[in-house]
């Protein structure tokens, strides 16, 4: 019975939170951007950049805080490029996002083989964020606490500050916002750069959990975060809840192969890795209904 609780309640619960954290962080990133009217599918690429540069920064500066700064900075830089393309040059937001995903992955994987030539690869023992001990011998990364803090801060900033009001105005009705003197372009730049920083942080979290960077470690997590944003109806608490669901499905997929009551063919790890992706599709299609985003999302704004 003790084993059961340990494995299924505490173990599964903690694993859920651990897997959910990057979805929450990147999902909040998506929230800032989309609330301001810019679709950011480049979250995926920003996470890849964050994951690599966190390890690189930690290696170069010798401290995890340096790593975090590098990871977040890389995400913000990509955010800036996305903003230049979509706000100033009025590029299609999805096309710019797709391009940035490819560019980020290409650059990072180029850098990772030039800076850390195979077969050694990225260093295995860089400085990592400290773990916080929990009751019962469990530990959790300090970044998980940062994730919960980020949810609270986002709620406060987006719904309780003048900045948040302007952000939402720009995403709902840029023309009206412009008329009352809000600098639409400036707000959108800031929002997309914050978005990149949060996605970079999400990527840093992923590589710090493992302790090194490997190609393909993000594997669609940025897109799942985007789904969490839609499923969570563009609200921070919704993002948190949706991310927990996706995190849970990932944690479950890792545990089900050990359950002997299920026929062997059904609990093959090859099949179960599809579970989080499948749940994401079902969540988007089945239970959300038509969730409606900010009114001006996806549309470039031309100053009149």
């Amino acid at each position: 019975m003790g084993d059961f609780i340990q494995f299924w309640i505490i173990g599964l619960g903690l694993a859920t939170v651990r897997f959910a954290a990057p979805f929450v962080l990147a999902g909040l990133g998506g929230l800032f951007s989309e609330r301001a009217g810019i679709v950011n599918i480049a979250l995926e690429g920003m996470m890849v950049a964050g994951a690599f540069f966190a390890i690189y920064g930690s290696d170069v500066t010798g401290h995890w805080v340096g790593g975090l700064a590098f990871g977040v900075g890389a995400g913000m830089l990509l955010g800036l490029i996305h903003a230049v393309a979509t706000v100033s040059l009025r590029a299609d937001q999805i096309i710019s996002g797709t391009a940035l995903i490819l560019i980020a992955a290409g650059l990072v994987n180029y850098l990772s083989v030039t800076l850390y030539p195979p077969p050694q690869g990225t260093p295995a023992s860089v400085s990592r964020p400290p773990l916080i001990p929990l009751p019962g011998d469990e530990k959790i990364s300090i970044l998980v606490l940062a994730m919960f803090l980020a949810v609270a801060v986002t709620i406060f900033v987006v719904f309780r500050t003048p900045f948040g009001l302007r952000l939402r105005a720009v995403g709902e009705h840029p023309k009206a916002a412009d008329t009352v003197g809000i600098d639409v372009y400036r707000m959108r730049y800031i929002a997309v750069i914050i978005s990149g920083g949060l996605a970079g942080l999400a990527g840093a979290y992923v590589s710090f959990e493992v302790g090194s960077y490997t190609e393909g470690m993000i594997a669609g997590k940025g897109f799942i975060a985007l789904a969490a944003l839609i499923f969570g109806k563009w609200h921070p608490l919704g993002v948190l809840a949706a991310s927990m669901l996706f995190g849970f499905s990932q944690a479950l997929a890792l545990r089900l192969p050990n359950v002997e009551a299920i026929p062997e063919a059904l609990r093959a790890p090859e099949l179960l890795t599809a579970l989080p992706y499948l749940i994401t599709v079902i969540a988007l299609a089945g239970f959300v209904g038509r969730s409606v985003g900010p009114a001006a999302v996806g549309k470039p704004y031309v100053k009149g």
Partner: protein
Amino acid sequence: MRIRREDLLVPVLAVLTAMLVGMIFIWITGYDAVYAYQRLFFGMTGLQWEGGLLPEWYTTPFGRTLRLATPLIFTGLAVAVAFRAGLFNIGGQGQMALGMIVAGAVALKLDLPGALGVFQIPLQLAMGALAGAAWGALAGWLKAVRGAHEVITTIMLNYVAYSIGAYLVRVGGPLQLSGSTNKETASFEPGTTMPVIWRPDNFTEVHVGLLLGLVVAALVWFVLERTALGYQIRAVGFNPEAARYGGMDVARVTVVAMALAGGLAGLAGVGYALGDLTKLTDTSFSSVQAGFTGIAVALLGRNHPLGVVFAALLFGGLSSGGTQIQSDQALAAGVGPKLVDVIQGCIIFFVGADAIFRSIANRVSARGRATPAGAPV
């Protein structure tokens, strides 16, 4: 669709700018950028200057370019058709994987007897296309009926497709070579593989998929420009509200367009599995990149079938060039394909942000207008 000057100018400028960015990048990381691009060009075309005025031509790199361009024609068309319906199909990877799985299963499990053997390859192509079409239609249905955004669902369905593939070839899986301890199928029998049309050397083969791709591109052009369905697809893509007002069944057109797109990507999978691979393994499905590259191909080709064919040749060439410089001693090991990824991403970026070129062009032409009348421009 009339081809405007801009339709040629933007892609050319985007490619040149992206090449420049790639060059700066190699230079920053401390390697000889000019040398790298010489090798890249050789890897694309097989042309190399060896002292004479005219270059020597080596067939192997060019054959590799054609081989790598073949699936890209199909995946590029898969993205382009969806684009014309206003849908962004990032699911080429998964649709292609379904084509690989089903064509592979037919090739391994079904051996048509005697004279019926001539139908073996057409049957494999048809089944693979159907499987891809079903996978595409699923995303179309999720969009049209359930309101789930196709960008996210197609990406998620890619991972699901990889899993299905890996599951089928796992040890003890239905397609796995029984008795083997590897996650792989048996090798494909000679009668099931794509006929080879050109073999520049013993390691490089160009299969009939290339010709099929050209025929299919022409067909896609015909369907889009000369049929009622094509008109509906374009109308929905142009303005779904107006199309609905005009009496079109937007949901049906969305599903059909995605099915068409998926079928094209499925064909890419059939050609790839039975033309380029000798068997399927658990990583065969996720290691394909043609589905993603198809996005760049379609964007660069301006979603026009002819443009897609040229763009596929260019990206096939870049990929071949990346392979060429991968093992080059003067460059860091393994950078070739990564560099090509960067160039590819930059091409998409500059195609998307084409306002850069337009504003430069405007400035140039404004200066032109400022010159006195009659002055030579």
